[in-house]
């Protein structure tokens, strides 16, 4: 059965520290569970848990960037190539440049597509990343710096981003392997 769910099951308003995050506007709420079969509901729960784990790992690692090889094990729990390589390159760049990301973002993922009958099973996750309180700073001085001057992607600027992630099921877990910023959308 080729299932492409028009799902918007989500965990709105996730945050590195729950007390710090406010509810994000215009985010879909959880659909009635009666519309989702149990296997799909279980998969969605696993995907959202994995996404939350990824974001938490990302926040922790970028708060104190180490050489990429030291971040590999933790990020590898949630990411696969090519996204893993990209995330590791960002960490390596931050470490080399002496840049940290201070503060905490919030995120609000929803599973918009789920293809459990694929080989491997895949999914699409749509996220609203609120990085307005998550800013680049010089590790030593604490002073502000910019993504452009540090050789980092423009999405490191403190702003809100609609992002879409591809996930695939590998052995025993969901891994995210691609991500893109939806530049023409706001959240």
């Amino acid at each position: 059965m080729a299932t492409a769910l028009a799902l918007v099951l989500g965990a709105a308003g996730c945050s590195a520290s729950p007390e710090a995050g406010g509810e994000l506007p215009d985010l879909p709420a959880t659909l009635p569970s009666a519309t989702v079969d149990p296997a799909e509901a279980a998969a969605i729960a696993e995907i959202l848990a994995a996404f939350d784990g990824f974001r938490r790992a990302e926040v922790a690692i970028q708060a104190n960037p180490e050489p990429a090889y030291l971040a590999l094990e933790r990020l590898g729990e949630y990411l696969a190539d090519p996204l893993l390589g990209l995330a590791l390159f960002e960490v390596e760049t931050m470490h080399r440049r002496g840049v940290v990301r201070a503060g905490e973002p919030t995120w609000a993922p929803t599973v918009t597509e789920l293809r459990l009958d694929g080989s491997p099973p895949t999914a699409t996750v749509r996220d609203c990343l609120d990085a307005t309180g998550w800013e680049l700073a010089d590790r030593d001085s604490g002073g502000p710096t910019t993504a452009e001057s540090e050789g980092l992607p423009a999405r490191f600027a403190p702003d809100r981003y609609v992002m879409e992630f591809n996930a695939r099921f590998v052995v025993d877990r969901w891994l995210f392997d691609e991500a893109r910023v939806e530049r023409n959308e706001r959240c």
Partner: protein
Amino acid sequence: MLSRRTVSAVLLAAAVVLAVAPVTSAQAQEDCGFEHYTDGEGNEHLVWTCTEGWSGGGGDGEWVCTTNLRGRTIRVPCIDPVLGWFTNALGGCYIRPAIPQPPADDPAWQGHDPTDGLIYVARCFAVDGVDGMPYVQLPTTLFFPVGEGVVGDLIEQAIALLPLRGADIQLAPDPSGVGLVGLPVWMWTPVTESTWGPATASLTALGITVSVEANAERITWAMGDGAQVHCDHPGTPYHPDYRADESPTCGHVYTEPSRSLSSGRYPITATTQWLIEWRIEETVIGGTVPAERTSSASVRINELQVVTS
């Protein structure tokens, strides 16, 4: 006892470099490196950026490769801790094994047997530029046997340092004696770094250190009577207290005597399947490669004589 074999193979590796790779003795370009760059349309690229143009001066002596981009020769690091190592294959690419490796039925293998090599993520220099800057394209996947280029040679040299052997075959009944039809045969090997692992080695050359570790995963015992016994265990040494018990981990029972064979004995072959993990220290570059080692013995099996009075 575990031991770590370390070889500083600068001279050996340097000879390989001169023979194989487009490596110069030049030093790194000063103030150059890969950076993220987001173009006006929001597309992200990894661009090769130099603060003083592309003909920069000396660096800190890191291992440097040369490549030709848009008619200009530039010097790039032969190793990037995340992108991988540089190879002139396909016009100049950084490659490293994909994490994780795709499953055996993934199209990325393009018909190759996963035991013959690895799927690599390749980031290759584009022939055009992004806003005037050289860049590496979005990653593609490629199959390579173990490694490619000079680094592949270093990995194979490091693997060759591992003291891997087949099983040190031990049998009950002892091969100098005689076994009986219907009675258990015990098979095992003493556990050493050479017979079961872990065995480790490392090799340092050209500013990088390749570390390898091998562990046996299985011994397949071909018992000479057509039976193959797969043991995911080195086996349990027999002790006379066990009398006629079967081995709890690795054993066999013959149903026919061996006298019909020309030698009068069953030839036994033990094939140890090793899994070798390799990695380049202080990078995310690493992978696995299988290996096999075989050893042999034989055993004589007689019929069980039933004495009646």
